[in-house]
């Protein structure tokens, strides 16, 4: 059943809303943005054809309110809704509500979301297909006592996970039984706050695994293909920080076997649209089914760069009832892509979120550099949502070139006003183990203790900059000149070379 999409509502915010709007623009599909009270200034509001308010800042009162989003869709005459990732993207009731409202949900059918959205049900499907899995529970934990019993059976360390979650929220590694109760409490609290469902389950923790996932696409006619793997082992707080495609650990044979397992899981769930099957891979290249994410992933661009396929465009094609643009044999992988997540967090202060105003911003560009951003200079990052500002993606003919290019691009990236992950990303990319492809989910924890905010190499330059800034401030104050803060002296355009610290003739009275 084909249906042309004419107007699409994006039930999301930030960089992913911008990403979807861009794909729609390129296909001539009109876009409708929604925004909470604190998001009036957000970039997606500016880029969409229409934008409508949906309520107060907390997501539970805006981006998660199905009725309000559907009311906007109806009023605006949208015939499709893209959920992005997070928020309602893996909410089966939302997919159903869209169908009931006669609006195309750009994502899998509600039944597939249910089957896979419950990780415990997904594990049952994988087990029945004979896809290998990490030992653990197939059901959500009913009580602390049950958790204790199960954890003893499968043996410590164990991993607690949100049954209805993703993105590392509600995940806790538990080394000893005495830590289990507190871990359960905080995992449930985080899962409840993030997903509206506090259920958690547990499985044996695989120590220092690689986290490798397979991108799949399924169309309405039941064809399912895979687009190869993404290496996502560089994580902190179980949240990915650096991703790449392909993985230096995966050869053609392993790719084919993991791809086949992923396609079988997706097909068994009646999966349609873009999805990702996550695996843990141990040092002996054994892979274990972890979960399936029934949505577009944050890190989808690395697959796009290497396969040359626009995944959001594919999603829109599939939602319109069209067949996949390529068969499995037509999928090829060329070169290497790396993505770094630029988050508003202070990596030198426990990754503390750093909301606030971006007073200066210059994103890198140049050959094979892509910056998927949801922010702009002057924008204030609100404290209500996640910390992702932008994804920096580069492509290179091989991994070494891609690493060099990423290092170059990160060095160009300037963000002032909020703290970002960029300094640590630079150190990761420069690290000998990263360069050699020796990755595991323990990489960052091992590396971080040796990471300091500086190693003193540029101390004198920094002192000089600080002293000159102070000297100018003092002189301006003495002269009574405007813009003593160094920001407003040049008048209206802060982007122009706003004021000169030096230069003959700039200053009066000497």
């Amino acid at each position, binding site marked *: 059943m084909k249906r042309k999409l004419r107007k699409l509502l994006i039930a999301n915010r930030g960089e992913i809303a911008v990403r979807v709007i861009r794909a729609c623009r390129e296909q001539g599909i009109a876009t409708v943005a929604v925004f909470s009270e604190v998001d009036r200034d957000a970039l997606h509001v500016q880029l969409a054809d229409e934008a409508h308010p949906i309520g107060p800042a907390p997501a539970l009162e805006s981006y998660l309110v199905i009725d309000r989003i559907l009311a906007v869709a109806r009023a605006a005459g949208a015939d499709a809704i893209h959920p992005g990732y997070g928020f309602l993207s893996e909410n089966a009731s939302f997919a159903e509500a869209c169908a009931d409202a006669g609006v195309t949900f750009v994502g899998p059918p509600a039944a597939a979301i249910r089957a896979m959205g419950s990780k415990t049900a997904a594990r049952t499907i994988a087990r029945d297909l004979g896809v290998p899995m990490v030992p653990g529970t197939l059901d959500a934990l009913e009580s602390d006592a049950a958790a204790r019993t199960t954890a003893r059976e499968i043996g410590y360390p164990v991993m607690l996970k949100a049954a209805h979650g993703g993105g590392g929220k509600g995940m806790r590694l538990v080394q000893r039984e005495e830590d289990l109760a507190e871990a359960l409490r*905080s995992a449930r*609290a*985080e899962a409840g*706050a*993030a997903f509206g469902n506090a259920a958690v389950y547990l499985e044996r923790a695989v120590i220092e695994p690689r986290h490798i996932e397979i991108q799949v696409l399924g169309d309405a006619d039941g064809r399912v293909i895979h687009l190869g793997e993404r290496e996502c082992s560089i994580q902190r707080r179980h949240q990915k920080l650096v991703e790449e495609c392909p993985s230096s650990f995966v050869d053609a044979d392993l790719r084919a076997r993991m791809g086949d397992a992923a396609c079988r899981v997706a097909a068994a769930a009646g999966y349609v649209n873009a999805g990702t099957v996550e695996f843990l891979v141990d040092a002996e290249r054994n892979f274990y089914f972890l979960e399936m994410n029934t949505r577009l992933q944050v890190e989808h661009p690395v697959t796009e760069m290497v396969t040359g396929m626009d995944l959001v465009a594919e999603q829109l094609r599939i939602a319109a009832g069209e067949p996949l643009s390529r068969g499995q044999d037509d999928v090829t992988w060329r070169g290497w892509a790396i993505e770094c997540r630029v988050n*508003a967090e202070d990596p030198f*202060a426990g990754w*503390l*979120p*750093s*909301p606030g105003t971006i*007073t*200066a911003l210059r994103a890198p560009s140049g050959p094979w550099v892509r910056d998927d951003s949801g922010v702009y200079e002057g924008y204030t990052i609100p*404290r*209500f*949502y*996640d*910390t992702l500002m932008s994804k920096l993606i580069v492509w290179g003919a091989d991994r070494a070139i891609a690493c060099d290019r990423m290092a170059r691009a*990160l*060095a160009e990236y*300037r963000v*002032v*006003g909020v703290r970002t992950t*960029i*300094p640590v990303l*630079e150190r990761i990319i420069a690290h000998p183990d990263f360069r050699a492809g020796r990755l595991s989910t323990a990489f960052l924890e091992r590396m971080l203790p040796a990471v300091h*905010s*500086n*190693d*003193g*190499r*540029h*101390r*004198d*330059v*920094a*002192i*000089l*900059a*600080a*002293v*000159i*800034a*102070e*000297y100018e401030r*003092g*002189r301006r104050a003495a002269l009574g000149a405007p813009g003593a803060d*160094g*920001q407003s002296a040049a008048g209206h355009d*802060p*982007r122009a*070379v*706003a004021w*000169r*610290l*030096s*230069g*003959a003739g*700039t200053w009066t009275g*000497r």
Partner: protein
Amino acid sequence: MDGAIAVKYVATVGNESRVVEIADSNGRYRVTLGESEWAVDVRAAMPGVYSILIDGVSYVADVVDREGACVVEVAGERYEIVVEEQTRHIIRTRGGGGAGAGDRTLTAPLPGKISRVAVRPGDAVSAGDILLVIEAMKMENEFRAAVAGTVAEVRVAPGQAVNAGDVLIVMGGGSDGNRA
């Protein structure tokens, strides 16, 4: 020096203080830092972003004020630098003095909502104990005691919204510095 007035500053990084002399000379700066003297050309490229040429070598430094200190980022390194005129520095440091009150209080480093308070007044805590949890940006952020001490005051309760800088917990006597 073309008649420009040289000003002496003290720049403190960590517990190291250095005297820096600076003079403006025909739109350039002459900076003396320890044994070295440089001719420096500085432009503000963007608000808080400085392009610096030191003997022809190009650097870009981000400079922002934060709680009385200058935070400078250059080439992926970050420095917190307190810059004072030398006379002021001498006056301030001559009086000596102990640790500031700030060392005994846990203040909210960011706005958010208190999701849990793990201690009560009178509780003895050890280094690494959880004091409280702030939910912000979809994360539960745990704050732990840096060193052992006794809780004197708890000024917040679960569910309460807090702003950056709000005092959350005050530590009582005993050991030094309970900054979490």
